[in-house]
């Protein structure tokens, strides 16, 4: 058995470490190859531009883009989402003012939509079904002659559910509406191809796929249809006028390498992660009662396990397993003191939302880590249930939904 190193990282949806191979390619671009990619008249600029072009091709290849010219580098996914939504809204406002999205999108999409609403756009927030996926029929029915854009994420950051993008893309293409996807969590980890899925804009980021933080991209389709966006940053007209600002060359080089690795290894990696995830899930569910998986098991990222350990509060659980980095949908772990809006949208009751733990497995997760975490979690859930009045009541056969609680 390999020896364990603490703390153990099982929060790969929040971020990922930079792969060593990625870092190695980045290093020269900080020092000897430090040129500005926009310097057209000397060797420093040329070598930077060449590196950026190679990265652009690698990003384009990973997502099935037809041309590297469809890749616009940004500072990350929040910027990409802002640019996609605001850029399309501004450019196509004469055509229509209606946008469709879902209630479980990332805040970078939801809050951008809120902003657009305050500027006169109308946004439909579609609910999700009990399995955590949006209904394709509801998307189709929500489209009006005012609709300019549908934005549906590829995979959810909390529950890992993968959305039926290909089906949605068929509809948006038929109806002449643009389709944007926040592909941050899913790209490289689940099937994603902008051509096959008729995606017109896609946001991705490097740091969720073993690249550096602070660099991302927006895919903007150039053909069938040619998508136009209004720039949201004014300046030197970089990125074909869509995003001004000196390019983060080392970051982009790292992003490109991270994409190349995903293109070559993503499918195998997902298989490995699925096996590890299932090892964790089956251990937990066979040794503990009242463990509820949140979201579809079938349409789910291989590395995601979001479960509620009923009668145990999530933050207390995180504290009990403090050598293991996970995440929770409990209110106590959020700044807002509200439980996860994603779990709420899923129809998980607030009590189970408070009890949720998200395990995120990734490239460097080992079987030994999974076994250690499973054993620790089982022990700590039992310990916390021993001190939970709810578990005692549940064991006595009391229906907790019938108790009159003093809400505060």
């Amino acid at each position, binding site marked *: 058995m390999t020896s364990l190193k603490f703390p153990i990282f099982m929060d790969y949806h929040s971020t990922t470490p930079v792969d060593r191979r990625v870092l190695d390619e980045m290093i020269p671009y900080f020092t000897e190859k430090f040129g500005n990619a926009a310097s057209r008249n000397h060797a420093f600029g040329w070598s930077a531009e060449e590196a950026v072009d190679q990265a652009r091709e690698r990003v384009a290849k990973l997502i099935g883009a037809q041309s590297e010219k469809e890749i616009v580098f940004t500072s990350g996914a929040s910027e990409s989402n802002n640019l996609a939504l605001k850029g399309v809204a501004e450019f196509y406002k004469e055509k229509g003012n209606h946008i469709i999205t879902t209630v479980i999108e990332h805040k970078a999409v939801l809050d951008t939509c809120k902003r657009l609403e305050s500027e006169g756009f109308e946004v439909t927030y579609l609910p999700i079904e009990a399995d955590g996926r949006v209904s394709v029929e509801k998307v189709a029915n929500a489209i009006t002659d005012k609709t300019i854009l549908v934005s549906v994420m590829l995979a959810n950051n909390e529950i890992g559910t993968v959305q039926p993008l290909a089906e949605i893309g068929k509809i948006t293409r038929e109806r002449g509406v643009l389709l944007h996807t926040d592909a941050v969590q899913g790209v490289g980890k689940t099937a994603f191809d902008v051509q096959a899925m008729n995606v017109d804009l896609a946001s991705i980021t490097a740091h969720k796929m073993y690249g550096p933080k602070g660099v991302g991209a927006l895919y903007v389709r150039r053909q069938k249809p040619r998508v136009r966006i209004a720039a949201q940053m004014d300046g030197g007209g970089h990125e074909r006028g869509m995003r001004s600002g000196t390019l983060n060359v080392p970051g982009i080089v790292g992003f490109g390498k991270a994409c190349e690795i995903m293109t070559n290894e993503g499918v195998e990696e997902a298989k490995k992660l699925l096996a590890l995830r299932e090892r964790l899930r089956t251990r937990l569910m066979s040794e503990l009662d009242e463990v509820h998986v949140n979201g579809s098991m079938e349409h789910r990222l291989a590395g995601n396990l979001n479960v509620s350990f009923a009668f145990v509060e999530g933050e*207390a659980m995180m504290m*009990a397993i403090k050598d293991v980095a996970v995440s929770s949908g409990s209110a106590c772990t959020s700044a807002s003191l509200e439980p996860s809006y994603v779990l709420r949208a899923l129809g998980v009751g*607030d009590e189970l939302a408070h009890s949720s733990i998200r395990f995120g497995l990734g490239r460097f997760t080992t079987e030994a880590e999974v076994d250690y975490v499973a054993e620790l979690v089982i022990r700590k859930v039992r310990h916390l249930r021993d*001190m939970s009045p709810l578990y005692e009541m549940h064991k006595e056969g009391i229906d907790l939904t019938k108790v009159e609680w003093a809400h505060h």
Partner: protein
Amino acid sequence: MAYSDKVIQHTENPKNVGTLDKEDPNVGTGLVGAPACGDVMRLQIKVGDGGVIEDAKFKTFGCGSAIASSSLATEWLRGKTLDQAEAIKNSDIVEELDLPPVKIHCSVLAEDAIKSAIADYRQKQGKKQADNKA
């Protein structure tokens, strides 16, 4: 979300976790909070002949601060008279555990649990005989 050492100590080694017989006339039970809010505390006291709390037990569903607040409350309750117990303020718990502002509601819940357990005990006693204080 950095915890004070005292909160960590109480959550790792909580004092007086358990259940007293709620049918016992000398036992008062307080159950406060709601699962949907993310915290439920059950605090029980057993009162001796001299009106002194001789045992206190808790079970809590909640975050580390909620567990620590109830654990601390049971420690403080033991050996106190009901009047002394009633005088425990949530601010005392905040101070002792060094709770951050966002966790003050945990201490409020603990104070509510104490008051609720005392009220339950008094109600039971009132059924048997006139309240000593009346």
